């Protein structure tokens, strides 16, 4: 479905774009394409949902969000959709995924919660627990970031 050219464009724009007045001009020169064609492709990726966004990634710690808790929940299958949508409605929840369970790991819903304090995280967790009536969950705070980078395509 993706042409070789699409792959080249995707690979290039997945990394930091140059901080110059016309960044897409630099990219188009690198790709050997017209700038307007590069822009048209980028718009099409956004339109068809290949591309989620084209924006700045911030280091959340540096703007005050110092705590990130991955909370894993054991939610009955038939309630997963409702619970997932509820979790997603919290501003402090950046990611919410349903994932496969594993042996010794009876959790199927994952929510990533960011807070300026641990208390802020816990207050969201208590709220979610109450609203979903889910008492079977674990809170895994991150204690060190080993890597955070853009996917390489």
């Amino acid at each position, binding site marked *: 479905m993706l042409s070789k050219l699409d792959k080249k464009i995707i690979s290039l724009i*997945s990394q930091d774009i140059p901080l110059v007045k016309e960044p897409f001009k630099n990219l188009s020169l690198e790709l050997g394409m017209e700038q307007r064609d590069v822009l048209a492709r980028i718009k099409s990726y956004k339109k068809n949902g290949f591309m989620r966004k084209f924006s700045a990634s911030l280091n959340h710690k540096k703007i005050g969000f110092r705590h990130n808790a991955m909370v894993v929940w054991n939610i009955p299958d038939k309630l997963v959709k409702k619970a997932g949508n509820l979790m997603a409605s919290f501003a402090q929840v950046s990611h919410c995924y349903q994932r496969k369970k594993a042996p010794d790991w009876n959790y199927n819903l994952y929510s990533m919660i960011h807070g300026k304090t641990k208390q802020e995280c816990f207050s969201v967790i208590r709220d979610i627990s109450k609203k979903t009536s889910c008492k079977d969950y674990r809170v895994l705070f991150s204690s060190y970031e080993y890597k955070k980078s853009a996917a390489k395509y």
Partner: protein
Amino acid sequence: MKKGMERRCGVSRRLKNKLSSLDKRILNRLQEDIPFVERTWQAIAGQLKIEEDILLMRIAFFKKKGIIRRISAVFAPRKINFASTLIAVKTSSNNINKVARKINFYPEVTHNYRRAAQFNIWFALVAKNKKRITQIITELKKDKDIKQILEFPAVRIFKINVKFPA
């Protein structure tokens, strides 16, 4: 503020206090899509009612300080025929940094965190296909420093919205 307290709050608190209201407006705007036009920064500067050069200077400053990691396109891996997953590893606290370094060695690893739990390393992978993910897991399973490894592929995405109000 007591001295000890200040140390604990670290750089982030002090940096945050230094952000002007303009800085915050810029950071909030840049977390949304940049316009797909030739003069993208000029367009954003216009929206913020500032000069393009000022915007470029502030972005350069944010990058230098590590507040902005990058400005780039984020794709949905599966929609462009890539595979992605989440993996948990159990290792001893003595070996944890060594194991994390070995995991980071794979260019497919996008996120990697130490977490306070029995499974103490959690990392995400984006790879060209499922076979490659299986291959990486198989290699890691052979590592004697890794006691257990579990894979949790996503079944459904309810939310991905990594935006932080500055």
